[in-house]
Every structure is written in C-alpha cells, then in structure tokens.
C-alpha cells in the first residue's frame, strides 16, 4: 500500500506543521486525507467541512500553497512525490489548526453594501427581468459565488492592504449594481470606491484563476471601476 506524507498546520498563527502518514487510496480527495487524520490519527485536529460535494464552500484550505476546496481536490492532482502540505486559508486569522475566522471576510461583504435594497413592497407585482437583458446576463455571470473565501486567500492586494474589500465582496456588489430591482445605486458605488475598494485591484486575476466556481471577480471589479467612473463623470459620486 502506498502512503502519503501529509504536513498539516497545527495551532494558531504561531503554530507549526505536523507530519502524518496517511494511506494513499484511489479517488482520494484532500478532505478524505484530513478526515482520516482526524478520525484515525489525532482527534484533536480542527478543520471545517459540511457538504463534501462542492456546494457549501466551508472546506477551503491552502493545499500545497494554493487555496482550494479540499472536497473537490483529488490527491492525484496535487500531491508532489507523495507529499501534501495543508494549511488554513491565507489572509484570515487562524482559530486553530485548519480553521480560520471568516468574520473579516464576511464583514467586508457588508461594508461593500452586499445587501439587496428593494425598491418595491410585497404588494407590488413581481419584477419582470428579461433573462436575455445585458444587465441580467452580467448578474448571471457573477451570482453563483458561495462565499468560500478561496479568491480572498489568493488575492495579492488583500495581503498588501488588509482593509481591501477583496474579490468576493466586490463581486457581490457588482451583482447588485447590475440588479435592476435594487435601489442602493450611488450609495453602493460610494461603498466600493474608497481607497480599499475596486480601484485598488491590480487585475492580477488570481481570484479568477483560483475561483472553484469558475467565476471572474476581476471582470466584476472592472465593471465597478467603469460604473464608479461614469458616476463621477455624471457628478453622482
């Protein structure tokens, strides 16, 4: 039976890697490896997961230096000479072992005005939005984000400026900017145009490269740049 040498981050920010030996199995995912360690080798290992099928986004970790969903990452695609290195997501405080504190990540969604602001009441008719309209197509291209934090961990700008709102929050804001039912308008544009907002993006495209949902937050951020620029030229911002 072949084996894997797995280095796993233990402890908090000042922790260290601990190496475990795990049996190598066919069709084995990185989440299977972490689960094997926790159930068979060290029950004190802390990690987070829920659905195991790429729907919830809670099992994201840094695998061999890259942020990934561990449930959808086959060991065969990432192991290097029988070795794996598994660490918590970057750019977020470590709670313990492989668990990060996601509050800063989601607080930024709120700071980017990621909440839908209705313009109608429950007594109004249901809004009719043509699926073929340009605005709706722009929303469709970005709406499937499940908030896993992979893009945030991959973003260089977050590393350089911890206040930067990050790709996911800005992507969310863009879906609302293009939502014809939303009424936040210039307030949201103002929320995403500060010195930690869309203009800080360097278009490195690490977020688009790593997004497990194959979204393109970079394109959404470019849309926000255009929208804020137009608002300034119109005198609205």
């Amino acid at each position, binding site marked *: 039976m072949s084996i894997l040498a797995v280095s796993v981050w233990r402890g908090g920010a000042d922790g260290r890697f601990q190496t475990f030996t795990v049996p190598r199995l066919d069709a084995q995912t990185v989440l299977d490896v972490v689960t094997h360690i926790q159930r068979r080798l060290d029950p004190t290992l802390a990690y987070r997961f829920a659905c195991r099928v790429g729907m919830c986004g809670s099992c994201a970790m840094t695998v061999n230096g890259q942020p990934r969903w561990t449930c959808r990452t086959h060991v065969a695609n990432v192991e290097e000479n029988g070795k794996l290195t598994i660490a918590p997501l970057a750019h977020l405080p470590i709670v313990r072992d492989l668990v990060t504190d996601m509050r800063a990540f989601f607080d930024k969604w709120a700071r980017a005005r990621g909440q839908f602001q209705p313009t109608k009441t429950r007594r109004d008719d249901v809004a009719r939005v043509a699926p073929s309209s340009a605005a709706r197509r722009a929303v469709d291209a970005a709406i499937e984000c499940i908030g896993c934090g992979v893009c945030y961990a991959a973003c260089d*700008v977050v590393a350089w400026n911890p206040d930067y709102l990050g790709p996911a929050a800005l992507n969310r804001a863009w879906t609302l900017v293009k939502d014809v039912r939303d009424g936040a308008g210039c307030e949201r544009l103002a*929320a*995403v145009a500060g*010195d930690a*907002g869309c*203009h800080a993006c360097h278009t490195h495209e690490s977020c688009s490269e790593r997004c497990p949902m194959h979204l393109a937050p970079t394109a959404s951020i470019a849309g926000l740049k255009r929208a804020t620029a137009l608002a*300034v030229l119109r005198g609205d911002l």
Partner: protein
Amino acid sequence: MSPGAETRLWLAQRASAVVLALCVVVHLVTMIAAVRGGLTAAEMLGRTRGSMMWATVYGLFVLAVSIHAPIGLRTVASEWLGWRGRTADAACVIVGVALLLLGARAILAVTL
C-alpha cells in the same frame, strides 16, 4: 480620501497613461530619427529651439508624467510601505510638483 476623489485619481491615472503611451511613441521615433542626423547638441537644439510643436509635445509628456507617477507612487507607498493617509498624499503631491517643475525647466531650456 473620499470615494469620488479616489475614483478621480483612478481616472486621472488611466487618462494620463493614454497620453504617455502616445508621447513615448513620439519620443522613441524622434530619437531613432534624430540619431541619423548626427547626435550633437547643436543638431538637437536646432530642432527644438523656437518650436511650438516640440514645446507642446514635451509639455504634454511632462504634464502626464507629473500626474501619472505620483498616483502610482501613492499606491506603492500604501501597499509596500503601509504608508497611507495625509502625509503619504502630501509626499506624492510634492513629487508631482517637483516632476512638473523639473520637466518644465528642461522644456524651456531646449525650446526657448
């Protein structure tokens, strides 16, 4: 800095980049052409002295640099040095003004 001001800076840097792209092309083509006529101070000054066209081209060039470079430096200061806020903004304004004055002096020296 306010969202509107931040967006204006972004627009200014993009617009100045467009001007710089054109000016750099003119500058490089001129250099290549100028070398063919012999690379002497007299030859260069003969082309530029009293020329409104060269004063305008390099005036635009200097203006674009004075806008573009400080905005970029502000980002570098923020991301690499963690230097943000009014002191960083003031330092970048000083750099911009210095570039403008030095560039204007050079243009005046070769066109007047």
